[in-house]
């Protein structure tokens, strides 16, 4: 078997061209997923009537569906009903000119939200109850407790798991070719379609994924090591 190192390098460069797309598909779902996931976690933590059981089911359902299916179903729903919906709301947007990346971001966010809500829920549960008592006893309102005590304590506890989620999302983003989005994997494969040197292309992309995930890991580890003043927990 011959291995064309020069072509691997070409495929590498071709893939690199689409790095912004892959990053977008990793970070935006993490952001949207965190916002909604934190909301769901709070609703379930405080056991808000009606909403809490509702989201329990939502999380249970989306946790159990493979990302590929969420992606494909989202694509079908968008392609089927977006034009109708946009027309009825007299929005100028049409499916044919919609950037397919938004569908991918939507689907990956949906996948991320259930996982992230569970991450935040377990972090909330691990805040010592005394922290809430102390905050209330000095006269904080519910919102002040959230802003001054819960959020600053939940984030450092959640960080290692958020890091995992980001890595999962970046890897899951390799599935977006299903909805005709070109990411780093697709970018390399387009190059390989010309000369059928798929092995070189796959290895080139694997190297990029590895470098990407290793850097995210390193940044998180650096933050945990040097920015840990918030993270230290009192052992009662």
């Amino acid at each position, binding site marked *: 078997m011959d291995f064309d190192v020069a072509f691997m390098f070409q495929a590498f460069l071709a893939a690199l061209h689409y790095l912004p797309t892959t990053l977008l598909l990793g970070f935006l779902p993490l952001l949207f997923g965190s916002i909604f996931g934190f909301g769901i976690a709070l609703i379930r933590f405080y056991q808000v009537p009606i909403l809490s059981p509702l989201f329990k089911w939502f999380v249970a359902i989306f946790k159990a569906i493979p990302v590929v299916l969420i992606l494909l179903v989202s694509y079908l729903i968008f392609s089927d009903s977006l034009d109708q919906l946009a027309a009825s709301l007299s929005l100028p947007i049409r499916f044919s000119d919609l950037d397919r990346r938004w569908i991918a971001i939507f689907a990956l966010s949906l996948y991320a939200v259930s996982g992230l809500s569970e991450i935040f829920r377990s972090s909330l549960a691990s805040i010592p109850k005394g922290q809430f008592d*102390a905050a209330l006893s000095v006269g904080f309102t519910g919102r002040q407790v959230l802003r001054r005590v819960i959020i600053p304590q939940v984030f450092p506890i959640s960080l290692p798991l958020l890091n995992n989620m980001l890595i999962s999302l970046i890897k899951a983003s390799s599935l977006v070719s299903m909805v005709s989005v070109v990411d780093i994997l697709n970018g390399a494969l387009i190059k390989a379609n010309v000369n059928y040197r798929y092995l070189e292309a796959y290895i080139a992309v694997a190297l990029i994924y590895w470098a990407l995930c290793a850097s995210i890991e390193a940044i998180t580890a650096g933050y945990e090591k040097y920015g840990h003043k918030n993270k230290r927990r009192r052992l009662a």
Partner: protein
Amino acid sequence: MIHIKQVHKAFGQNQILKGIDLTVEKGEVVVILGPSGSGKSTFLRCLNFLERADQGEISIDQTTVTFNQAKPKDILAIRRKTAMVFQQYDLFIHKTALENVMEGLVIARKQPKDQAYDTALQLLTKVGLLEKKDAYPHQLSGGQQQRVGIARALALNPEVILFDEPTSALDPELVGETLDVIKQVAQTGVTMIIVTHEMSFAYDIADRVIFMEDGVIVESGTPVEVFEQTKEERTKQFLARFSYHHS
């Protein structure tokens, strides 16, 4: 002056408080004694709504609130007239000693930062921890954490400070420093309700001692009355289990 009337509280079928009445004069130090499970801590936690009592009312400094009907703003009003010192200290773990003392003033009371900063420095000096002002709770010993907890409560200048077994979680050699600080604060005329198992401390500091068991007040009086001229058999049995001496 604080009036507390007919506090009832049950957890499920378990009736913890069966109608507690208590009046505390301004500047008075009331110590509550009693075996574990007698409802002392629950009573204290009902007063600032960390637990919701089923029945009864509290009035502090002209604000009267019925426990089971209190709205969020009533609860906040009562909480802002009280402060609490906890068994497990419960300092904000992501804040320094100084920030812990300032937090209530700046956030809850909306005091300007520089003013709160001055108050906090003054109080940390008072509890003997000025040099630890930038330490995080995990860098402090239990006794030091609890003294910061006392400074945090004092900063709010409340009508009453509730002490929930302030030395029960401390190593024996750290109990003394904490009790000394509480005594010193008591001498400045701060109204206090203290739940404790430290009998000599109770004898020394209390204007009034209350013995509680099974959710009712069994006996109440001056330290001399309760410790030396004990009337109730149950109180005698309880006190007999402690060896205490007073200075």
